[in-house]
């Protein structure tokens, strides 16, 4: 007996170490090292020495200041609108009583299921020179530039705002409101004294998240920005157009600044929420109050109407002969005439599957191993694993091209391969995936594992037969999350695609560049179809899993 148990112990330890080391080495190689390279390149001078010359040069260039000014103005305007609209929708969903909330919930996630440039495409069909509005009313509205970009980004950022604010609203227990009610507080006072303080940090956080994703988003800026240069397009021009890698690195490092601030606020918000969460929250069930709910319902429907119009019109336009002159039904735009045709769609699906499978596996073994390490070490490594969220996709993409395009290390072999694109997609969304799986592990009852090992199962066996089935829903969610994000992401991969290796979002951009807007719409429709399909499959699997659980219990 003794021999068996001691051999088992060694094996378990080895397994734990392997589980932690492999994902961490990969994280170092595909996240930390590239980020280090960006930093070094930003202070590397043309003669090879180190210095702040690049920063001085960038800061004194008029192009940089113009782009910064534009990014700030556009980012702040987008922030105001999407936080306002997101706030209305979150309150409508969780604090008002009206019908058709399922529709709002369904439509609000649409922007997440499409490449970011789809909002821009939709706006062009709607409000562009050949848009229905200009045609119908005989107007000469010019949508390209500041307003087009702001509207597109507002719609793009809206789902995130709604999710962040909703998350803090659902933590507020119905009984808090009832206590206030019985103490004599009127509804408006309850809103001021309970709701507002509770979502204060969430609103602040949402504002920063919006600001960051808008100033670092590439897709909408490239399609609808027109002459209105912003930082994201500026990096692209510096790096791809002018091959000015070091200057690109400077802008990349600068884009990290707002993210760091946002990260700090989020942490603050999380601290505030600790100790607040009661174990069994009784969700708030609003009673119908006409003077509050009818205007709120109208506002919510108008906002989601805008999202539906902009995205829906892309799908619609892909099926009509000649926008906006001939609305006869046709499939002809689905015959992609650009070189490569649909190959990039298949490649993207393959890459996304790779990122999802590899990513889910790596995240699982990392979380599995981390929870078995001494607590201090584990906590430090958890902070590290949660870091990639702080890096905007475009900066990560820049880091990758600087790292993997350089022939100075053997990592160069990965350059131009699909593996690298799968890797960047995974590491771009590493944090969210990691946190989801960690949440799953934290809910795992320690007693189950102890029961299994008391019965003589080694750690590996326990993992497969007890832990995996328990956290399977989290793994499924993470798998599809990585898949869907990889399908639509553009900012992170824009630097890594080559004429031989394109991804779907880049193809859409090229189709639009080539003036084949209807084909761009058709291609977008295909991408959205794939993503919606996978979302459907995910929901199906998750509902089957929960049914099995109920059946077993």
């Amino acid at each position, binding site marked *: 007996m003794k021999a068996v148990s001691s051999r088992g112990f060694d094996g378990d330890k080895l397994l734990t170490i392997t589980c932690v080391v492999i994902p961490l080495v990969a994280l170092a190689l595909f996240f930390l090292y590239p980020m280090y390279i960006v930093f070094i390149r930003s202070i590397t001078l043309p003669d090879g020495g180190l210095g702040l010359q690049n920063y001085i040069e960038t800061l004194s260039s008029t192009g940089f200041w113009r782009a910064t000014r534009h990014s700030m103005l556009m980012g702040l305007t987008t922030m105001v609108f999407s936080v306002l609209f997101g706030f209305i929708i979150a309150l409508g969903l969780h604090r008002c009583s009206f019908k058709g909330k399922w529709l709002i919930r369904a439509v609000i996630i649409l922007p997440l299921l499409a490449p970011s440039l789809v909002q821009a495409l939709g706006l062009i069909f709607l409000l562009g020179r050949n848009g229905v509005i200009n045609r119908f009313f005989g107007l000469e509205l010019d949508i390209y530039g500041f307003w087009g970009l702001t509207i597109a980004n507002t719609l793009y950022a809206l789902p995130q705002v709604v999710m962040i604010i909703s998350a803090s609203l659902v933590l507020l227990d119905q*009984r808090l409101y009832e206590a206030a009610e019985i103490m004599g507080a009127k509804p408006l006072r309850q809103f001021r004294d309970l709701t507002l303080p509770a979502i204060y940090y969430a609103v602040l956080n949402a504002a920063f998240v919006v600001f960051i994703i808008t100033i670092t988003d590439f897709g909408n800026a490239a399609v609808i920005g027109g002459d209105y240069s912003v930082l994201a397009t500026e990096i692209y021009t510096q790096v791809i157009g002018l091959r000015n890698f070091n200057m690109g690195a400077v802008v990349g490092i600068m884009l990290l600044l707002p993210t760091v601030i946002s990260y700090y606020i989020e942490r603050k918000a999380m601290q505030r929420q600790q100790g607040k969460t009661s174990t069994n929250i009784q969700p708030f069930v609003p009673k119908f109050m006409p003077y509050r709910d009818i205007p709120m319902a109208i506002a919510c429907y108008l906002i989601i109407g805008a999202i539906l119009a902009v995205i829906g019109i892309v799908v619609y336009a892909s099926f009509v002969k000649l926008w906006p002159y001939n609305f006869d039904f046709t499939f002809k735009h689905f015959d992609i005439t650009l070189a490569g045709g649909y190959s990039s769609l298949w490649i993207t699906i393959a890459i996304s599957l790779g990122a999802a499978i590899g990513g889910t596996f790596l995240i699982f073994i990392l979380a599995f191993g981390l929870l078995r390490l001494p607590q201090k070490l584990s906590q430090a490594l958890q902070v590290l694993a949660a870091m990639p969220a702080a890096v905007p996709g475009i900066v990560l993409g820049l880091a990758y091209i600087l790292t993997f395009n350089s022939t100075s290390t053997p990592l160069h072999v990965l350059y131009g391969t699909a593996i690298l694109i799968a890797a960047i997609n995974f590491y771009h969304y590493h944090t969210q995936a990691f946190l989801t799986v960690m949440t799953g592990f934290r809910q795992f009852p320690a007693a189950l594992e102890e029961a299994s090992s008391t019965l003589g199962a080694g750690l590996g066996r326990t993992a497969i037969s007890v832990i995996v089935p328990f956290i399977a829903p989290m793994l499924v969610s993470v798998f599809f999350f990585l898949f869907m994000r990889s399908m639509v992401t553009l900012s992170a991969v824009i630097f890594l695609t080559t004429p031989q290796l394109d991804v779907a979002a880049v193809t859409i951009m090229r189709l639009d560049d080539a003036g084949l807007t209807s084909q761009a719409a058709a291609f977008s429709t295909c991408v959205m179809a794939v993503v919606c399909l996978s979302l459907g499959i995910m929901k199906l699997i998750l509902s089957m899993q929960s049914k099995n659980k109920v059946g077993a219990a």
Partner: protein
Amino acid sequence: MYLTVRNATKLYGSFTALDDVSISIEQGEFVCLLGPSGCGKTTLLRLIAGLTDIDSGEVTLEGESLSGLPARKRGFGIVFQSYSLFPNMTIAENIGYGLKIRDTPVNQINTRVTELLDLIKLPQIADKFPGQLSGGQQQRVALARAIAVDPRVLLLDEPLSALDAKVRGDLRDEILQLQRALGIPTLMVTHDQEEALALADKIICMNQGAVVQAGTPKELYQKPATRFVADFMGTSNLIKTEVIRSFMPELLGMRPEGDDELYDACIRPEAIKIEPNVNGDALVKSIGFLGNLSKIKLESTLGDLIVEVHGAIDLEENQNVSLQINPADCNWVLNDAVETAS
């Protein structure tokens, strides 16, 4: 009658949460609504508070109907199982919130808050936040918050259920002292019969949306009206009429008229006296020693019985004993299990 509920009915879809319920609370009285989960006791409390709309029936306070009066205008105080302190406010702000809403001057609020913190024996915590307190402390604060505005009725919704046994006992005593000192009419919902016995002037025992029996704790324990009450309030031996008639007919004296199925005998475990007797027709199956009492399981002509005696007892398993039951200790209870089963 200070507060009354008359013929209250509440439906949730096809589920009847409350079925024609009438209760009353006197000035200064401590009333417990007791029953298993889903019996409608919390719904009744929420109707009285004004948090849930009544389908039919009426709630009156000092003779005036509360119909249509929103919860915030009823002037009640409430404490929930989940403490439900406002997480963004300090303890002092929590306690003073009701006064602030009533536009009480700040210095008066402060005086009142200090007074209440002394009353709940937590004078040092005014500037802390709820998240920094233990469950027991939070619930004390919730109590202080509820009584800060001198409520016309104090409503307690399972206030002790989330607490550890030790804290629960302490807080139970404090609630009782506080209620006695302030004389606020209090209605408490609980599923714990021991809690109800210890606190209540009057217990209203509920099952399946209806009041089964209302009375003093003593009445409910000693004279349970139905099988349900007998079973829910402590342990009882419930025996069919025909069994009693065959083996202990002397107990039939107190039995009300009615079919055999209509009434069962209810004999409390401490009412059965046992003595070792080789010719006794009951057999000891097991003996559980619980310190202050012993719990003995018997097999007898009356069926399986539970007997409790004070302290330890000199018996062995499989020993024969004789039984003695005083007819006055045999209660006849309505067999409500028959009605609900059909």
